[in-house]
């Protein structure tokens, strides 16, 4: 029994979510192989070969796989996947994009965003915005699964020495083309991997006021997130959104500033180790999940906090 993990990468570097997915694969048990698909991904393949516990790296390096267009990579993964008991991918926007297509090509159901492995065929996953946890069992010949990275501790990025093998198959559906992308630039840690996250909501008032949070975040080495209200109001770009429809984070410390704590926001952060809420409304639902709550005006509390930490 072997497990295929599809690597998440930026073409130049392997993404951390891959390490959490390999951790989930190890919990299932069996040989772990990693597939790196893309164009010009030699360095990523080498990084994947060094991951502790990986026994083989498959590399599909072709122009057809650049930008991981699902029409092209899904047939590749489905073809390779037939030889495995499990096919896993991180529940990133890429993984969520191509993996259900792979499952349908294999004619099996997919299990989305698992947070725990009970056994080789039984998994736990959150439903209803994290308000219930379902235990599901799969009888599929190939189990196709996306992995929520906050559910598993990353394996070591170094220590392995897997063989690298090129995959010759090229599938180019010719139905879609990459036009361009606009990536948000940030020097702060990546939101989903940060140890500390400082998030702002509607209470920030405007985009300019987020500078208070950036200053605090820089002092703490934290990433900055936001609620949907802050994104919809145009304060910050949408890739900063934490919640059911944004990113799922589980840092050591989550500081929610001017966020009421709607169900959809809590879905994205309630597994954080310590939650701090700063809000002037003492009835705000966020105080029900906060370990430490401070009822105060954020425009006074945040600069003071920045000074004291």
């Amino acid at each position, binding site marked *: 029994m072997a497990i295929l993990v599809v690597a998440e990468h930026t073409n130049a570097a392997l993404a951390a979510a891959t390490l959490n997915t390999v951790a989930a694969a190890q919990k299932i048990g069996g040989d772990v192989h990693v597939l790196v698909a893309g164009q010009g991904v030699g360095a990523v393949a080498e990084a994947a070969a060094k991951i502790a516990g990986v026994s083989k790296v498959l590399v599909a390096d072709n122009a057809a796989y650049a930008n991981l267009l699902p029409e092209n990579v899904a047939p590749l993964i489905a073809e390779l996947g037939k030889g495995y008991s499990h096919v896993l991918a991180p529940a990133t*926007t890429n993984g969520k994009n191509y993996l259900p297509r792979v499952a349908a090509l294999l004619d*099996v159901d*997919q299990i*989305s965003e698992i947070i725990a492995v009970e056994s080789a065929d039984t998994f736990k996953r959150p439903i209803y915005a994290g*308000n219930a946890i379902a235990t599901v069992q799969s009888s599929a010949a190939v189990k196709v699964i996306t992995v929520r990275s906050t559910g598993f501790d990353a394996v070591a990025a170094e220590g392995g020495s897997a063989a690298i093998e090129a995959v010759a198959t090229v599938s180019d559906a010719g139905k879609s083309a*990459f036009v361009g992308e606009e*990536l948000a630039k940030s020097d702060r840690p990546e939101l989903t991997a940060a140890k500390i996250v400082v998030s702002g909501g509607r209470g920030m008032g405007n985009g300019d006021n987020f500078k208070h949070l950036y200053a605090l975040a820089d002092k703490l080495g934290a990433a900055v997130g936001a609620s949907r209200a802050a994104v919809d109001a145009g304060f910050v770009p949408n890739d900063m959104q934490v919640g059911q429809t944004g990113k799922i984070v589980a840092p050591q410390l989550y500081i929610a500033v001017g966020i009421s704590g709607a169900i959809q926001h809590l879905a994205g952060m309630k597994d954080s*180790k310590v939650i701090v809420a700063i809000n002037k409304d003492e009835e705000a639902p966020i105080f029900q999940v906060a370990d430490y709550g401070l009822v*105060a005006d954020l425009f006074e509390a945040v600069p003071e906090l920045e000074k004291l930490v």
Partner: protein
Amino acid sequence: MKVLVPVKRVVDFNVKVRVKADNSGVDLANVKMALNPFCEIAVEEAVRLKEKGTATEVVVVTVGSSAAQEQLRTALALGADRAILVESADELNSLAVAKLLNAVVEKEQPQLVILGKQAIDSDNNQTGQMLGALTGYAQGTFASKVIVAGDKVNVTREIDGGLQTVALNLPAIVTTDLRLNEPRYASLPNIMKAKKKPLDVITPDALGVSTASTVKTLKVEAPAARQAGIKVKSVAELVEKLKNEAKVI
């Protein structure tokens, strides 16, 4: 062109759901149901394409119990032209739903299928992509902008690091993200008119589709509750607690 919009009846997004005592599922008796928010966005986008003259007909379809007719009427009141209910009493998995939708696509031959990116009950985020595999159409998931130009559709997608734009050959599948549009409200006259719009009911058997599944739910539990926290009086006290008690900074 014809646009097909699959929609889903789900528990209203404001309802705080409760897990049943026997752990068999979530208690949905007497709970307010509504159109899945992402599906509303999908209907809105299709209606806007019609208003622009790009789309000629908007067909909404759902797979579910007869009660889902209510959500189809809502979609008709928002501007869809006709509706199809694939009536199934069982709770179906995404693959089964995608197979049923595939059969509807074969019958209806739409140029564009617009779905929500995920349903807020199962949180699967699978059906659109699976329909893509079954139809062989290209897919533009998590769309925040959709521009139809000739025989192609340009879709701007919300990805982890920002935005990505892809060009897809038509026919194609698009799944909506929250920022694609702001759905309109149904006006009373339109709700009245929607009652007269056609709504066909068909069965999975009539479509010749098997809805067997390889996944079963063993149990559903409430998530672990967090320990009650405390309120601090000042920023200084907060910093002291974070440093010495929680030891996170």
